[in-house]
């Protein structure tokens, strides 16, 4: 979509033109949904968060500064909406702080061939507090200080949550690799996501028979 087309659509949205709104929605659906999916637990919630974000966009489109990139503005709204959506749950999870970052160094992961859906599912399986910090730090590029300010938590808590998120992701990746290896050796059912009964988190997708 050219800048001129985008500008035209935005002008239509300012006039609350439904057709323009739909075209803008359609044009940025994938971009917005991708953001919401990694902040959400599943597709249901992602769609709900995304629509809340678009609702803000369409009802406050006058606040958009045309001199700045629309996509960045939209992305920021989606991220903020997602953080707000889970903020009430996040408060309960911020119990432990990590003042020193030494332990972060223990996280490492081997090269693998996991695809988008595999990795997205892993992120979605993280506890919300870990997932939010991991998204903000690792994907969106915010610092711990910025995250602390956004989520109203200390820098130490942000680091702690990032560390734990990485540990859990690493564990999931290793488990997934192990299952993939078994699959090559003749395993009949190969779930994409890690199946590890010793893992502390509950996979969203699993095969009960293999799991047991």
């Amino acid at each position, binding site marked *: 979509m050219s800048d001129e087309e985008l500008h035209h659509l935005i002008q239509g949205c300012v006039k609350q033109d*439904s057709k323009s*709104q*739909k075209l803008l*929605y*359609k044009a940025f*659906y*994938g*971009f917005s*949904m*991708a953001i919401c*999916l990694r902040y959400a*637990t*599943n597709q*249901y*919630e992602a*769609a*709900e968060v*995304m*629509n*809340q974000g*678009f*609702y803000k966009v*369409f*009802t406050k489109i006058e606040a958009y500064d045309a001199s700045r990139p629309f996509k960045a503005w939209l992305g920021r709204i989606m991220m903020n909406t997602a953080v707000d*959506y*889970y903020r009430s*749950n996040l408060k309960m999870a911020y119990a432990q702080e990590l003042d020193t*970052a*030494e332990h*972060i*160094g223990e*996280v*490492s*992961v081997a090269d*693998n061939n*996991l*695809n*988008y859906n595999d*990795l*997205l599912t892993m*992120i979605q399986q993280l506890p919300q507090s870990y997932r939010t910090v*991991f998204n903000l*730090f*690792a*994907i969106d590029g915010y610092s711990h200080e910025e995250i602390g300010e956004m989520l109203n938590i200390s820098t130490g808590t942000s680091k702690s949550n990032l560390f734990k998120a*990485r540990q859990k*992701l*690493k564990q999931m*990746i290793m488990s997934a690799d192990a299952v993939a290896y078994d699959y090559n050796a003749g395993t009949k*059912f190969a*779930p*994409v996501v890690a199946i590890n009964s010793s893992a502390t988190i509950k*996979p*969203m*997708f*699993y*095969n*009960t*028979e*293999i799991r047991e």
Partner: protein
Amino acid sequence: MKDEQHKNIDDVFRQVIDDPANEPEYRQNHWDALDEMLNGKKKPGKMVYWLPIIGSVAAMILVVLGWWYLVPHAAQNANFAQLVVHKPKGTGTPQQGSKPIEAVKLAEQIGTGDSMAHAGSLDAKKPVVGSFMEEEEKLKTPSANLSAPGIKSLRAAAVNQDVALGTGPMERNSAMIALNKPAGINLIIIDDATHAVAPVNIISSLPNLVSNITDTQKGSFKNDESWFKKPRLAVTVLASADVNGVNSFSNTNAGKNIGMLLSARFNKLTISTGAYYSFKPYDMPFSSYSPNSGYRFKYSPQTVTADCRMLDIPLNIDYQVFAKNKNAITVGTGISSFIMLKESYQYNYATSHVYGLSSYNVSNPDKYLFSSVNFQANYRRQINSKVGVNIMPYVKVPLNDIGYSRVKLQTVGVAVGLNWNINSLPKPK
């Protein structure tokens, strides 16, 4: 930097997750949902949903409290009974000169009720007095006029009981007595010689007065049910066990509830409201599971198990059908609203060789106003004037679909509890 040393795990995710090639495809149903929001059919946000519920509860509490404070006062005004006593000529009292004037002043408070009972032989057919001047004239006329309904709620000012009752013999045959409203009793002393009127509130001297009245009159006083006109407020704490079924009771799960109700009893009618914290698990076939969601199961689950925690806010009205000694039975109906607090679903597949969504936790549970009709019977046994025990079987019939899964949830159960009368009245002797 430690972060930089181990950013590879971040990079693994960033490179794949942030890749535009992986962006999901447009889905029309998501736009339809947003279009509804934009057209005002459905608004996003959380607080908006709470406002009507909070408002309804607040309004109900205000109505109950308002009734409590206002009705007893009104009833008290209307409950002034009247005793008119003619004093024989020559039995003067210190009030003879002043009481007529006092009575006229007090006539401002005259009511126009019609509940006065006439025990005497005086004229009871006088028209209701409409104005102050008319009332003043009537008060100055012989005592027969005083029996008009318009003066029945005449209030007395400060009373010297001994003086008001006088020392001379009462002429009971010419006394007019209206004792069906014992919240306040006026004694009007009329001197036959001067026609002076002396209204006296003798609520505190009731025992002395009653001793001068016939046994029949005392009996009617004792049995008067108007003692209970004042609403009695009670708090009831209930715990219940119930079974829940979707559409029918063919497949049920046991639930439990604990709650508190505030009730106001008006004679045989009781209005109650409050809140229950309910734990409601239920099973449903996948065909009954119909969330408003665009998600499509690749493999359909066979059944869905729901685990719901909710606030049940009932507004019930009950009628007392039986009351003897300390036992009472009421039957009633009402309506319940539900506020979902926690809602999760477990998807059960026919075979384990299926790859699909295993559970879903609804992150923003909704509210469902006036979604079920309640039918209940309540057996109450008073332990003492303050405390009673309740046993209440009940049925909840769904009016609307509730929950994320949008099901008609039926419930039948039994609640047991204790009720505490906040403003229990003294028992009539």
